[in-house]
């Protein structure tokens, strides 16, 4: 065979394969789904949901892409700007207004409402507030998760204190009581703190998670319409309580210190039900209680995250189909073990209370009650700017001699123009 002949054969093989003739013509599609969890248990469960979708869509695979929580929004935004938007992803409540306003999310209402047996009306209307307009749906909350108090029962028992569970029964489970318990349980000699803030990040990225539940229990709020309420006497009273826990009592892990509840180094913390997976190997007895009440009564606070399809995703229709699959009754019930659902039928069904084997049904009832009565963390179209403006003032709170009222007033004057 001459050289020329060989070359022609190579060229024609290359051309035919590039045109798709003779090559594998199966058009496999991959949906990329961004999440911020790295938990093996969470990813295993998500993988099972993806597998059940693949069973009806054999050519489709779903890849879950974990991005660290702190960088999540920035990274997906950069991916979108770089023309490599994920098809689907999780999105937190405080990012929702900005993403909806920017047109970054796909309207999936058509697919959801036409999906067989989907029952769109089953979703709790208050829970859908951030994610739908009169004629469009931009996401489905997969986690409407109330904040809960986790406590180290072994430490409570050793100190001979009444546990939060016992106090709930007689109505004495208040923020003042939590403050007092934290002070009593602080043991500097063994490095045990009384209280740890949300994921230990309560002075930085999660400062709102730390303060909003207390502020609401005292009758205050972050803002109402375009009016900042963080400097109201009720809000200031609440912030002062927390400040006293950190500095006057010295019971709370302060900024710049570590005190992990899940390794037994703090007696109390506030977090969500999904963190229960971190207690699988706990060497101590633990319990879960609802948030304490304040002078204004109970004020359950809910953190919310939704599954969204991105407007710039390459497989928009398929992504909407997967979103419908992931948030159907069966899969919402499956996810309910970690992520409290916004589907009323699942929430009110017996299955929810027994969905998490690590949590007793009466404890899961706290979660259900929190969803029913709780309000979502504050969000705003300009939340990143508000957060940046508020940050130096929140920082100013964290010193022993801080003037809480004056600092909150300054904070409000800073964020008011942004509201």
């Amino acid at each position, binding site marked *: 065979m001459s050289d020329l002949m060989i070359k022609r054969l190579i060229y024609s093989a290359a051309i035919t394969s590039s045109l798709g003739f003779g090559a594998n013509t199966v058009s496999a599609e991959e949906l990329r789904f961004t999440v911020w969890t790295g938990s093996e248990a969470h990813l295993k469960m998500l993988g099972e949901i993806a597998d059940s979708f693949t069973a009806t869509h054999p050519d489709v695979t779903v890849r879950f892409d974990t991005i660290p929580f702190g960088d999540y*929004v*920035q990274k997906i*935004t*950069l991916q*979108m*700007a770089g023309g490599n938007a994920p098809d689907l992803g999780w999105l937190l409540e405080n990012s929702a207004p*900005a*993403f909806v*306003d*920017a*047109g*970054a999310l796909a309207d999936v209402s058509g697919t959801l409402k036409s999906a067989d047996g989907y029952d769109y009306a089953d979703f709790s209307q208050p829970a859908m507030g951030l994610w739908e307009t009169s004629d469009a749906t931009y996401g489905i909350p997969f986690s409407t998760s109330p904040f809960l108090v986790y406590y180290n029962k072994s430490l409570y028992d050793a100190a001979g204190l009444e546990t939060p569970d016992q106090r709930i029964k007689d109505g004495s489970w208040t923020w003042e009581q939590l403050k007092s318990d934290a002070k009593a349980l602080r043991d500097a000699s063994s*490095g045990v703190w009384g209280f740890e803030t949300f994921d230990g990040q309560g*002075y*930085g990225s999660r400062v709102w998670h730390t303060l909003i539940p207390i502020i609401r229990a005292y009758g205050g709020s972050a803002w109402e319409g375009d009016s900042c309420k963080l400097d109201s006497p009720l809000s200031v009273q609440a912030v002062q309580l927390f400040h006293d826990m950190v500095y006057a009592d010295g019971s709370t892990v*302060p*900024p*710049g*210190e*570590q005190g992990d509840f899940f390794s037994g180094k703090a007696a109390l913390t506030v977090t969500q039900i999904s963190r229960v997976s971190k207690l699988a190997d706990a060497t101590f007895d633990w319990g879960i209680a609802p948030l304490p009440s304040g002078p204004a009564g109970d004020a359950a606070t809910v953190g919310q995250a939704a599954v969204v399809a991105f407007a710039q995703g390459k497989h928009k229709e398929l992504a909407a189909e997967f979103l419908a699959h992931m948030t159907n009754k069966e899969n919402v019930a499956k996810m309910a073990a970690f992520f409290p659902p916004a589907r009323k039928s699942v929430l009110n069904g017996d299955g929810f209370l027994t969905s998490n084997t690590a949590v007793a049904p009466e404890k899961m009832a706290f979660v259900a009650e929190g969803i029913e009565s709780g309000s979502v963390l504050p969000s705003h179209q300009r939340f*990143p*700017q508000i957060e*940046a403006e508020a*940050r*130096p*003032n929140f*920082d*100013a709170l*964290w*010193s022993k001699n801080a003037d809480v009222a004056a600092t909150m007033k300054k904070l409000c004057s800073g964020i008011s123009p942004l509201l």
Partner: protein
Amino acid sequence: MSAVRKGPSLSLKAREAITGWLFVSPILTGFLIFFVGPLIAVFYYSTTEWNLLSQQSRFVGMANYVDALTRNETFWDVLVNSLVFAAGLVPLNMAMALGLALALSKSRPGAVFFRTVFFAPVITSAVAWAIIWTFLLQHESGAVNQGLSIFGIDGPNWLHEPDWAMVSVIFTRVLKTVGLNMILYIAALQSIPRDYDEAARIEGASNWEIFRRITWPLLAPTTLVIMVITVVGSLKVFDHIYLMTGGGPQNGTMVLAFYIYEQGFKFFNTGYAAALAVVLFALILLLTIVQMLLKAARK
């Protein structure tokens, strides 16, 4: 036997030029696409109001610059923080580097070991370095304050008190980067002929006189290079601030590079961030030119 084909003849010079360009073309292509292109693009983006999230963009001329320089008070605070960081880091870094180089340039027992010790942080991951220092600088349980408590000193909350946070990030950054400058100084010191030193000693010069009259002037070119790269590096600092303080407390360590990141990737004001990046570029260029001119004036 096939006939030899003759193409259009090129001169040897032209053929060499083509070969040369072909050899450099891979790196040149990368340089143009990934360096020169974005550099030009930043100037263009700085004249637009471009929201990264919505991908909406419109031409606004010099409005971003006007806003940053005349209306944005935070920008000036951030600029002052950047200059404070540089003013703290550069002299400390250079003085330490020179001191270490003078101590470790000669062959003496342990010199190689200590050179390795001081150079190791340079090749250590910046992330690991910053995270370890955040632990060491914890208020009560940090090793630094526990060490101080042995002497009865109640150390501050280093990274969470506005007065100490900048000091802490400067000091830990110096420890991270001083090794490189030390090596540059050692190389320069070892290239100074010993004859000068010996001649000066025969003439009765003291160690200080030898350093001041001979060593220091001969180190001047190296000092200029070190100063330029340290100043540029200090103004560009980002990772260290991001990991150790996040710009806090109370924006006390918010430097220009971090502020650019926040504007671009947290608030999605990409056009505005590009304008700030151009300001940072201009600042670094200006400082570098000033250093060059000072050097030239001294000659």
